[in-house]
């Protein structure tokens, strides 16, 4: 996968021409943003809470080893089997081996961005194991064979008519394009999968070191099904999701759903500490946790460490003037919007995704809403600087910028060129060569006007 400037511009043109897409992103981002503002407004002091969460994330990432080891110790004591995966393929292999050893050929899943990151579904299918996505939005994009387009609303780009077509095909009967009916159809269709599945696969929102607990936040109830009914529960979670104490996890949770969906808390906050214990009537017999690195550790201690404080709420997507025009698919990564424009090149290659750091006006709206106050504009700039240094930009543009900067350091030359440009037709000539609209230059520069009679005192 390569997303360079011309490719991204092509994606952009396609997205801008798609009226349905434009309408649906506009609605969704507006709803999410309004909800977020209202939900944070309900808190006694959301700003102080955000400051606190920023410190919590920074302090944890500074000493991640300590917290991961403590998590591992406590989770193991609670009966969780902890696995470590250096990269996507190791993580997929671990999950596949767990399924194969138990003769499992079908798994139920909850929405998980890490699962998208490591392309777990295609790995499972390749190994002959059928993954069933159970989050409504995720099921829709699975049936459409598309990636999710928003980190918390995977099918935000789909209309109810499109969903009705997908469901009718899948279920072999005509399903009405009515949202309640479609939701009911998914409930009926997936109930059987929940009851028969032998393995449930989830991501995880938070890992609490103090007790070895996995926190899983959902609204639909599928997360509870997946972690309560099958005898085996496997969670794949990035190593950065750990937090030392419950006190800190509670601060995190207090901001997560408010920032994501505008809910004070999601409907189900599921705190899982190991498999079912003796005497419990149900719950999984085995819980496995795969701790995924996949490049994360290589950015700790660097200028990009801050990025790994991200709690994946999606608030930055909803206010981004770029994301809200192009949608998630234009980024060709599970992580889109401002957080994706930084995280995607870090995880999947700065060379391959060279357009993404350019896909921003550096307006700063993302920083305004981030519950962790992650300075995304700073890191976008950092990536751009690296691109210049590594020669990843088109040479002509680089040459033009360098030349312009050089002229700017020579005021006399700058003034002379200004006069010359006006003598030889102003912007007309330049317009022949420049592939984007530019304004007419004025007849006189301000330098000239300053010396004119108009401004004499």
């Amino acid at each position, binding site marked *: 996968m390569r997303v360079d400037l011309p490719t991204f511009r092509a994606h952009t043109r396609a997205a801008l021409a798609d009226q349905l897409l434009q309408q649906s992103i506009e609605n969704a981002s507006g709803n999410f943003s309004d909800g977020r503002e209202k939900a944070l407004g309900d808190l006694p002091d959301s700003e102080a809470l955000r400051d606190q969460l920023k410190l919590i994330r920074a302090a944890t990432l500074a000493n991640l080893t300590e917290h991961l080891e403590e998590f591992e110790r406590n989770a193991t004591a609670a009966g969780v089997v902890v696995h470590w995966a250096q990269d996507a393929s190791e993580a997929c292999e671990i999950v596949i081996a767990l399924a194969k050893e138990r003769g499992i050929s079908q798994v139920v899943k909850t929405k998980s961005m890490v699962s998208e990151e490591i392309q777990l579904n295609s790995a499972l299918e390749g190994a002959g194991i059928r993954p069933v996505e159970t989050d409504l939005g995720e099921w829709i994009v699975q049936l459409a064979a598309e990636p999710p387009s928003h980190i918390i609303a995977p099918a935000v780009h789909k209309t109810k008519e499109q969903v009705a077509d997908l469901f009718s095909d899948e279920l072999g009967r005509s399903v009405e394009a009515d*949202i309640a009916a479609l939701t009911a159809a998914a409930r009926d269709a997936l109930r059987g999968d929940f009851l028969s599945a032998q393995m449930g696969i989830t991501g995880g929102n938070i890992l609490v070191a103090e007790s070895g607990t996995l926190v899983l936040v959902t609204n639909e109830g599928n997360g509870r099904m997946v972690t309560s009914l099958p005898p085996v529960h496997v969670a794949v979670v990035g190593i950065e999701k750990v937090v030392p104490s419950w006190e800190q996890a509670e601060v995190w949770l207090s901001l997560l759903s408010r920032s994501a969906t505008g809910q004070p808390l999601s409907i189900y906050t599921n705190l899982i500490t190991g498999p079912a214990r003796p005497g419990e009537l149900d719950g999984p017999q085995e819980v496995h946790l795969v701790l995924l690195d996949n490049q994360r550790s290589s950015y700790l201690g660097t200028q990009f460490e801050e990025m790994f404080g991200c709690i994946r709420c999606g608030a930055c997507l909803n206010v981004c003037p770029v994301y809200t025009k192009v949608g998630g698919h234009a980024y060709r990564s599970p992580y889109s919007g401002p957080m994706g424009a930084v995280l995607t090149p870090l995880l999947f290659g700065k060379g391959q995704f060279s357009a993404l750091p350019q896909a921003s006006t550096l307006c700063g709206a993302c920083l305004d809403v981030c519950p962790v106050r992650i300075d995304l504009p700073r890191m976008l700039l950092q990536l751009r600087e690296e691109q210049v240094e590594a020669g990843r930009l088109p040479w002509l543009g680089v040459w033009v910028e360098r030349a312009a900067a050089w002229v700017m350091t020579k005021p006399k030359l700058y003034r002379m060129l200004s006069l010359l440009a006006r003598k030889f037709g102003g912007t007309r000539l330049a317009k022949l060569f420049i592939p984007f609209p530019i304004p007419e230059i004025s007849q006189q520069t301000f330098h000239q006007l300053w010396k004119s009679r108009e401004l004499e005192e």
Partner: protein
Amino acid sequence: MSARQEILNRIRAAAHPAPSILPLKPPIYANDLVTRFVTALEAAKGKAHLADNLEQAWEILRHRLESIQARRVVVSDQAPLKEVDLPAIFPEIEVSIARGDFKTVQKLCLAADVGLTNAQAGLAQTGSVVIHAGAGLSRQVSLLPDVHFVLLPAALLVPDLITWESVRPSQMPSQVLIISGPSKTADIEQTLVVGAHGPKRFEVILYGQR
């Protein structure tokens, strides 16, 4: 070297001094936790009922079960739910206590239209109940039936998730579930639909004095 070792080595090499975390100023909450609980739960499309005592709670429950025309209720095997003669209180309704092995309990839960459980705490600010897994208990009672009713002593309300820390079990149970309303989704066109995979109706009866 194992993946674990390699990852931990890399992280250890990157460790650096951490910023210190300032303690949060204690937030100021409305005094009336019950009112806040009711408002928040109803905003999340749940429903709350207030009862002065347990007797009255049963009365409200009976009334609610009648009005939603419940026929089968599965009840969590815990006090005070199992200590009263439920068939006598709800003569029209088939009541079963969730006991037995996994499959037996599942059958009961799938056949029931209502699951009835306790909760170990309530969070006023978010209108949530906190339910612990434990020996003799089933997670399916609150999950599989279309309706979930919860009986919660009002005295167990705490202001919010952050203050819940003071009553959080020091040994975490295998599962602690914080439920803040009926299951829902807005995954299609951002339109809220109540009742996704979990219960479509979620009601809490708060009883007793605070």
